[in-house]
């Protein structure tokens, strides 16, 4: 049986956690993702940038009142990549 190739970008604990959160919501802000993943702000910023560069998520920087706020959303490309990743995982489990 041939295994499907796993997306290297998604096969990382933090990036996968971020994508799993974003696939199930409309949008989430940086603080929420940080709380859910229990990641450090620095590490999370780096991983979010990588996902954005790949076109998997979009990041919008704005303000909530006077406080700066970073809102993340999954893109259609991200949804497709996530779906392919899960399909590939299934092929490993059902081997």
């Amino acid at each position, binding site marked *: 049986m041939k295994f499907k190739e796993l997306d290297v970008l998604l*096969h*990382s*604990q*933090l990036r*996968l*956690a971020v994508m*799993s*959160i974003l*696939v*199930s*919501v*409309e*949008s*989430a*802000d940086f*603080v*929420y993702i940080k*709380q*859910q*993943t*229990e*990641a450090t702000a620095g*590490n999370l910023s780096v991983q979010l940038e990588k996902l954005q560069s790949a076109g998997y998520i979009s990041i919008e920087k704005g303000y*909530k*009142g006077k406080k700066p706020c970073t809102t993340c959303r999954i893109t259609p490309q991200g949804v497709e990549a996530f779906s392919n990743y*899960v399909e590939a*995982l299934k092929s*490993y*489990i059902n081997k």
Partner: protein
Amino acid sequence: MEKQKLSAEASLELISQMINQSKMNLNGKSFNSWIGWGVYTLLLGIAILAIVEFTGVQQWYWLWFLEFVYAIFDCKRNQRQEPKVKTHIDNAIVGIWSALGWLYILTPVAMTFSAIYLQHFWALNMIMPLVLIYTIVGVAFTGVILREKWITAIPVICSISPLYMFAVISSQQFAQWHMVLFMATFFVVMVVPGIILNYKCKRLNK
């Protein structure tokens, strides 16, 4: 989150854990505004009825337009307290209430226009049952989206009240106690589901 090698099983477990955590994130604050609306309407109604009773001047009924004061306050408060995460469920609920919000505005405006310029004064009596119908639809649809059968059932049962009011209006027998019926129904439709949902949200987010 620690860096570690992911097995296929661990990846799937992580995915389901994160999805479940996010799905459970119902934002309790939005249901506080239901409770606020119910209590404000009840208090405003009691105040208006008392003023009309003591003064005998029916023009005080125009104070019902103070409902818009709470609407503006509620909109501003919701803008300030924007949630950290917006789920697809939140979006559907906001969509329903935004559409109903326009009906809440247009109905009193159209009925008042009809009464003043076309002399159709019976139109003013239509405002209360129509507002109740909009509220019942909003709460019931929210219940359907959240899959909460009581949140759907309570407003559906309460729909007897506006239907009765329509029947009475059509026979030209609108009495002052129908206002009490409106206040009581509005209170039950907004406050009881609001309390139930807030309780469930708190339990889920524990």
